[in-house]
Structures are given as structure tokens and as C-alpha cells.
């Protein structure tokens, strides 16, 4: 039995399946997770005392959610599980964890980062108003707390989550004022060959849309957002957009849930000094990995949406495969048949990933067209005008330079929400390719670290 110390970051589908593989080989991995319970974002488990059933919480994914939770519950005693623990930094083969105000180091021989994804956001005039949420946040409110973000909600953006969360809201009894998708009808049709890699998922997606239609929800494709209307004190009052025919429309609402598919959470991979490459399909910089999930740094493995946006099923497969890669690299016998099967699954997931990226493209040209007065960086309150000014007047043509001069990406979110749109604005203002603009370098802490944090005297057990 190997005594190697393997750390897994994140107890979502990738992290739990990775842990399963390692435990089966006789290891006792450390599973660190920020959440109160396992399941990650997609299979988030409700807090104690909430009694909704799997069907109500996870819909068509109830069985997968149940299977993952049961796997975790079965593994629990054979894991060094650290919930409510943030990996705030990483350096020199050591993770730095904080829990209950105490920080301590966790040295590892191998680390599997399953950090997941967050919503990719595109600024729109008024998106700083109260009542404007990301799709993910809107879904968490529902899943974890059985709350809706408003009484009458507009869903804006693009991607599978747009329809999923809108349908979940409709099912839960919230009023869905409209689903406003920036992807055009033709985008989805052209992506059918890739989307056909997973006909079951495609069918589920179409069923969601049919459900929304039956529920009488107004749905728009090929939309161009104009503004989230409202007042500073009262918050959101409506969404103004142009429909595919160019006609301007105003939909009244008291909340907007927005998101443009997802962006990989890559800060830890960056702090671990992994190499990145530009993924043209998603227009994002992603850590470089081999088919097994090995990063460019020895001992570092990446799985799930934090490495490739392949969704929950892809996360389960890539997590398990990364676990097998860890075993191989440690010299522990691993199941080659299982690896071959997972590699085939992931090839299919990858084809589907490309299909999703094409069916719901990031509307990057909108960034160039944003009015000057639009806030790009909500944390620091920086407008598109100021960001463009540092490009044109001060020569900041690279993402980190533009950040240094304008403060876009310098605030509490550290560019996790404004960075991708900010880069598009810099590219447009400097008339250069998005690759030339580069990506914001991540710095610790991964999330804000309270100044009350102290070095722990001993490692907690």
C-alpha cells in the first residue's frame, strides 16, 4: 500500500470520483472542500433540516446525484475529509489551507485540483444593480436555500445553464419573465454534429426548452442585451434588449440571472505554476493537461470543469482518470481497462464540449460595443471608458498591464468575473488578437483572506 500523500481539492463530481479510485487502491487521500457538504456546485447537498427529495432538487440528474452522494458517504470513513476549508495558496509542493481562522500547510506528493467553474459574465449597462445575479448564484439560492432571486426573473446570457436554471425556477413556482439567449438559432444547428456525441444530453436539453415553452415562458434567440434597467436604490426593474430582428424590447422584472456558459476556475493551477494555453473554442486560457489530466508540473493533476468545461459527467470521468494517473505515477497498480474506458468517454465528452461552445458562443464582439459608461469591473467601479483609455492613451495592450493602469480585475473578485470581458475590451481597443492580450496572472489568496487568520500551531486532525 502506498503511503504517498495525495490531496484532492474539491468534493464535486471530479473530486469524489478521484477519491473513489484512490481509496480503492488502498490510499487515504485528503479531500479538501470549501463547501459545508460534498457534491460540489452541481450536486450540492442541501443543509441539514431541508427535506426536499432528489427528484425535486436534481430533476433528470437525480440518479447521478444520488450515486455520487452515496459514493461519498461510503468513502467518508476512508478519507481525510476537510470540509469548509479553503485552499488559499499553494507553493513548493504544499497547499495552504484555512479553516475557522487558522492556516496550515498541507504537503503533498500529488495534488488533484478539481476546482470547478463559475459563470462567465459579460458586462451590460446596469449589471451592477441590486437584483442582478449570476446564473450559478440563482441556482445556489434555489438548491441550497429554496429561495428565488426575485418574484419575476429574466434569464440572460447563453449556455445550457441558462435553460436549466430557468426551468428549475419555473418548476419551483417562480415567474420566469423571459429567457434571453445571445446565441443564434443557427449556432445550435451548426453544432449538431458535435452535440450528437451525447444524444441523451441533447435530448434532455431540448426537453427543457420544450418544458419552458409549454410553461408559456417568452424565449428569444439571437438577442443583443442593451441594458438592465432600474434605479440605484430600488434595483432592477427590467431588461432592455434587441431581438434577432433588431427590434428593441423591454421585459419588466425584479431580478436578472445572467451567465454566458462557464469559465474554468484556474487560480490554483496558476499558483501551482502550471502552463496555460489558449483554447480557441471557448476563447479562454486553460491549463495544459495530457489526456489523463497531468498538468505541466510534476505531481499536479487537473480534472473537471476547472480544467475542461465538459460538464458533470465529464468531471466524474476525468476525476477518476486523474486518480488512475496518480496511481500509475506513484507506481501503484491501476486498472488499465478502466483507464481505456474513461479515455473513450472523455473523447466523447470533448467532442460534446466543442459542440456546446459552438452552440452557445461567447458573444465577445459585444464587449467591443459596450457603451463607454458601462461598468466593466464592478468590484472597483471601473468603466469601459477608463479601460479603453489606458489602452489608447497609455499603451496598455496586455491584460496585466491594463489591470495595473486601470484597476480592472484588481478588486475582490480578482478578475474572475470581469477578466475575460476586460481582455476582449483591451483587444478591441488595441485592435489586437485576444491571444496577444494574454491572461491575468493569479495571485494568492484564492479567495479573500481575513486578517484575523493565524498560523495554526498544529495541523488539525
Amino acid at each position, binding site marked *: 500500500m502506498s503511503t504517498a500523500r495525495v490531496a484532492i481539492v474539491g468534493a464535486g463530481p471530479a473530486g469524489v470520483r478521484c477519491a473513489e479510485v484512490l481509496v480503492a487502491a488502498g490510499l487515504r487521500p485528503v479531500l479538501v472542500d470549501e463547501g459545508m457538504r460534498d457534491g460540489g456546485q452541481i450536486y450540492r447537498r442541501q443543509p441539514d433540516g431541508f427535506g426536499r427529495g432528489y427528484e425535486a432538487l436534481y430533476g433528470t440528474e437525480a440518479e447521478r446525484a444520488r450515486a455520487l452522494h452515496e459514493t461519498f458517504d461510503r468513502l467518508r470513513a476512508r478519507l481525510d475529509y476537510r470540509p469548509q476549508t479553503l485552499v488559499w495558496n499553494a507553493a513548493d509542493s504544499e497547499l495552504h489551507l484555512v479553516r475557522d481562522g487558522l492556516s496550515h500547510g498541507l504537503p503533498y506528493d500529488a495534488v488533484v485540483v478539481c476546482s470547478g467553474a463559475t459563470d462567465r459574465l459579460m458586462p451590460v449597462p446596469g449589471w451592477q444593480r441590486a437584483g442582478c445575479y449570476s446564473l450559478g448564484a440563482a441556482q445556489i439560492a434555489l438548491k441550497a436555500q429554496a429561495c428565488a432571486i426575485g418574484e419575476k426573473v429574466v434569464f440572460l446570457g447563453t449556455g445550457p445553464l441558462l435553460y436549466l436554471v430557468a426551468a428549475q425556477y419555473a418548476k419551483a413556482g417562480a415567474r420566469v419573465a423571459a429567457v434571453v439567449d445571445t446565441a443564434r438559432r443557427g449556432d445550435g444547428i451548426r453544432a449538431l454534429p458535435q452535440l450528437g456525441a451525447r444524444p441523451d444530453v441533447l435530448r434532455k436539453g431540448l426537453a427543457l426548452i420544450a418544458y419552458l415553452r409549454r410553461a408559456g415562458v417568452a424565449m428569444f434567440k439571437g438577442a443583443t442585451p442593451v441594458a438592465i434597467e432600474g434605479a440605484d436604490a430600488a434595483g432592477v426593474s427590467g431588461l432592455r434588449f434587441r431581438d434577432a430582428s433588431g427590434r428593441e424590447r423591454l421585459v419588466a422584472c425584479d431580478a436578472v440571472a445572467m451567465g454566458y456558459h462557464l469559465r474554468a476556475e484556474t487560480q490554483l493551477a496558476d499558483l501551482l505554476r502550471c502552463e496555460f494555453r489558449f483554447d480557441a473554442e471557448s476563447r479562454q486560457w486553460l491549463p495544459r493537461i495530457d489526456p489523463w489530466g497531468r498538468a505541466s508540473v510534476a505531481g499536479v493533476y487537473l480534472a473537471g470543469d476547472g480544467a475542461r468545461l465538459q460538464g458533470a459527467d465529464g468531471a466524474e470521468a476525468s476525476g477518476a482518470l486523474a486518480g488512475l494517473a496518480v496511481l500509475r505515477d506513484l507506481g501503484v497498480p491501476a486498472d488499465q481497462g478502466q483507464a481505456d474506458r474513461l479515455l473513450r468517454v472523455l473523447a466523447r465528452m470533448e467532442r460534446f464540449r466543442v459542440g456546446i461552445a459552438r452552440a452557445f458562443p461567447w458573444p465577445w464582439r459585444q464587449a467591443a460595443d459596450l457603451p463607454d459608461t458601462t461598468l466593466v469591473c464592478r468590484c472597483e467601479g471601473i468603466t469601459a471608458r477608463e479601460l479603453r483609455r489606458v489602452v489608447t492613451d*497609455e*499603451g496598455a495592450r496586455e491584460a496585466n498591464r491594463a489591470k495595473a493602469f486601470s484597476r480592472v480585475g*484588481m478588486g475582490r473578485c480578482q478578475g474572475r468575473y470581469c477578466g475575460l470581458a476586460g481582455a476582449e475590451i483591451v483587444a478591441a481597443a488595441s485592435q489586437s488578437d485576444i491571444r496577444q492580450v494574454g491572461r491575468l496572472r493569479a*495571485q*494568492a489568496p484564492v479567495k*479573500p*483572506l481575513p*486578517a484575523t487568520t*493565524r*498560523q495554526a500551531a498544529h495541523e488539525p486532525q
Partner: protein
Amino acid sequence: MNPNDSDVLIVGGGLMGTTAAFFLRRRGHAVTLLERGLVGQQASGTNFGNVRRQGRFLPQLPLANRSREIWGQLPELIGHDVEFLPTGHIRVCYSEAQADRLETYARDARPYGLELQMLRGEAMRAKFPYLGPEIRAVSWAPRDGHANPRLAAPAFARAAVREGARIVEDTEVVRVEKTAGRFVATCADGTTYRAAVLLVTAGAWGNLLSEQFGEPVPMSVHGPQMAVTEPVPYCLVPVVGASSDSIEEIFYFRQVKRGNIVMGGCARGPAYPDARRAYVLPGSPLKQFVQLERIIPALRRLSIIRVWSGIEGYMADDVPIMGPSAKVDGLFYAFGFCGHGFQLGPGVGDTMAELIDTGRTSVPIDPFLIGRFA
């Protein structure tokens, strides 16, 4: 004239190089500045941003005073204020012995024109009521302050360009030599630049150039340990620094107008000049939190949102190198500012321009000459 020829060639586009380019243009010299990356990216752009004179090595004060005058000429001088604020600077200490040292320093600094006010007991608490109970004394420099290092060198560079300087970024000098009375700098892409005068302002990499002229110097590199909090309403006016013999207690912080508190100190981190990267040790912010709470307990409620570092060159005697070469005519140096160069920057640029233009300096620079290592 070949466009790659100039009167003065400057290698290194930090604060020293860009300010020198600006002031040399003001004196009418044709200037080309070569920068390997982007101007102000290394120590000049990543330091704490202290415009602090108190606490400096006394013979450095005339230069620091000259620099302070230039800081006071912003934004008019270069068309940008680089967020310079003459907010005052306080040095605090935890022991009577240290307080006595501050008192001695205040007395010794007075002949140099630096007026410091010592405050203890009730007077200190009345003036700075937010200080923690462990603080025994304050040395207050009302005219010191702070500025934004991310903006300073780029702003001087743009002003220098407006004055007619040529600044070439993304250009790495691999070899420098003097042949037939002219300096020749050969870049990584094979391009050459020539000038009668060469000024090396290459910071932590200065030694790589000085040794090509037979003047190696004992230098080490370190990364400052910086962190910044989320913004809170602006209320902390002076820059605060703790004076101590223990590096863990040497901690400093300031609040910027938009509310974030920038902090640094308690340790020095590793720096990798070849990779051009330096890191914050994970333990550093944790050490800083302890000191922050000792100095202003109320600030413990904040969170930091980012840390960063940069590459600073330190001389073995903790004194920078500035002045003419001891061996080669027409060769000048200004590098190795040992983590305290930001405040000096504009004064160094102005003084080097004066030295190159007239052969003399109106502030003494004898303690900084490279010949001390010969």
C-alpha cells in the same frame, strides 16, 4: 544620424531609467532607453510606494530631499499625479530603547532639513488615537507620503517620450562594450544601439552589465512581500511603518484614497531574476496580520484580496550604486537601491541627468560610488 545612435543610452526602464530619460531630455540630450520587458514592471512597479525620507541613511537625505521636491511638482511636471499624496509618515516603535533611537535620528536629521516630530504618551494618543496599546512612540514626518508605484515609472516614461526620448520596450540587451570611444549595446535580436554615454539603470540585473566593464559588485536579490486589503472608507491618512531590530516587526502599510490598505514587510521572499518572477511566501501575510493588529487593532477586521512581489537588488552594504564608473569614461550607474529606491527615483533621475550633463552633482553622491567595491 542612425536612429539607433544617441547621446545617452539608458539600459533599464524602471523608475531610475525613465526619470533619467525625462530629465536628460529636459537638458537637451538625445536619449534612447532600452527596456527588456515593459517600463516599470519590476521593483519600480511592485514596491510599497513609500515616499518616505525619515529613517534613511543620513548621507542619503540630500538626495531624498531633492527627490521630494520633484514629487511635489507632480502632476504639473509630467502631466500625471501618479497618486502622490503628501500625507505624512509615521514610524512607530514598541520599546523605549527604540523610541530613543528614533529621537536621536530626529535630532540628527534636522541639519539635513528633515523636520521630524517625536510624540509619546498622551500627545501621541491624542494625535493618533487609533494606535494600539503596545506602541510607545511615534516619529512623525508631516511632509513624507506615498504614491502609486504601478503608475510612476510608466508616467515618467510617457513624459520622457513627449519630451523627445526614444523608449524601446521588449528589447533585451545581452552585451555592452565600449569600442572606438562609443558604447555599443547588442540586443537579443542582434540589433545594436550606440551612444557616447551609457547609463545602467538595470535594477537587480545591474551587476550583469557592470561586470562586463570589469566592475562586478556584491549583490543579492529578494522579493518584497506585499498584500492589499479590500477597500474601506478612506480614514488612515499617514503612511505607517514600524521601526524594530526584528525583521518580523518591520511592517508598513498605507491606505490609498480609494480605500484599500497596502501592506508589506515582516520578511523577504525568494526572487528568480532569470525567470523574472518573485513570490510571496505563504507565511508572510500571516506574519503581517499579527503586526497589523498590534499597530492598529481596528484593521484586523479587513481581508486581504491579493499579494504580490517583485525583484529588488540589494547591495552587500545596503547602500545603492550611483554615479560614474570608476573604470570607464562616459559610463554611469544607478542601480541596486536595496528596496528603498522608490522615493529616491525622481531625484536619482534628475541627479544623474545633471551629472551626465555637467559632470557635477548639486547633492553629494560620494557614499554611493561603485568604486567602494573595487
